[in-house]
């Protein structure tokens, strides 16, 4: 494959990963924010959903009680922001670092719950579901995390190439000036 067509293919892969990962984060965020069954969309019902999500976080028994509610109120909006940011492609290196860190954090939290033998549901995409098990960790570790890693590695490679191209162009301009 020609270097230019390889770069083109790489860009398409990156675009697909960005959109897929962005949608995953957005779906995860909306499932936590949306009103519980039977409640209408309103500020109060969103607060109730976030309070339910806080109970899910509390059941992981990782964070101190004082940190649970602020974390539960921030995380869904962070996921929503991160999802949109990934899709936009702006400052991809930073967004892919954040998504990789977030996914590593989620996997570590689930591994901790599983290791301690707690029967806790994931809460990753809303309430309910079976207790956390290897399936959840494999989903995040083998499906979501690779998407993020592709973006992370790809964004650094592209930035490096772009930096090299800029340097070459600057050198050419300088040479032409001489």
């Amino acid at each position, binding site marked *: 494959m020609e270097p230019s067509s390889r770069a083109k293919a790489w860009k398409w892969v990156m675009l697909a990963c960005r959109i897929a990962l962005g949608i995953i984060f957005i779906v995860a965020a909306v499932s936590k924010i949306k009103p519980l069954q039977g409640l209408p969309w309103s500020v109060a019902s969103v607060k*109730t959903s976030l309070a339910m999500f*806080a109970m899910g976080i*509390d059941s992981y028994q990782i964070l101190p009680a004082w940190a649970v509610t602020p974390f539960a109120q921030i995380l869904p909006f962070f996921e929503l922001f991160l999802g949109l940011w990934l899709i936009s492609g702006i400052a991809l290196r930073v967004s892919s670092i954040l998504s990789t860190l977030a996914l590593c954090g989620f996997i570590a939290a689930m591994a901790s719950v599983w290791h301690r033998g707690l029967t806790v549901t994931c809460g990753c995409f809303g*309430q309910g579901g079976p207790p956390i098990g290897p399936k959840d960790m494999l989903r995040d570790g083998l499906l979501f995390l690779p998407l993020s890693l592709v973006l992370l590695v790809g964004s650094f490679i592209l930035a490096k190439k772009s930096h090299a191209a800029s340097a070459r162009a600057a050198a050419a301009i300088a040479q032409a000036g001489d």
Partner: protein
Amino acid sequence: MDVFSDYQCPYCRAFYDQTLRSVIADYVSTGKVYLVHHDFPLVLHKYSGEAARWANACAEVGEFGPAEAALYDNQDEWGANGNIAKYISAAMPAGDFRRVEAIMRGSAMPAPQATGSSVDPMAGVSHPCSMDTYIAEDIKAGYQLSLPGTPDFVITYKGHAFAPIDTGVSWPVLKQLFDTLLKQ
């Protein structure tokens, strides 16, 4: 709030001590929350079914609250030797305890326990107590919710039951949920 618990389960004791006592004092006694206790005595706890019998018998004479507190407060003691009557009798007036004993008369272990959704909770119960049907109904209700263990609870708001919470949660977090629901 429907709570499924096992009197011999240490996590249930922690949930009772750290959360349910506050729920009862601040929200149940003021009429803001309706709390329903369900028995889900797990088969891995030898005396859990028997303890559920005693608690239900105490409920029949209006002494459920003191009995529940006595069972959790002395869980290690009766959990080791099965002498539940000792702690129940100390938790209520002698007259009430005699009525409880009358309900329990003629029953013997094994008591109904949660052994698996394919097994009738009453299977193997050779000397039943009149309370056993209530316990068996609770166990079956737990099976329908696919409870993975205890404690577990379901919050129902305006006829809508939210997904079960499969573990105990701390009081400040649960309080926040109640407050947001009550403000709606």
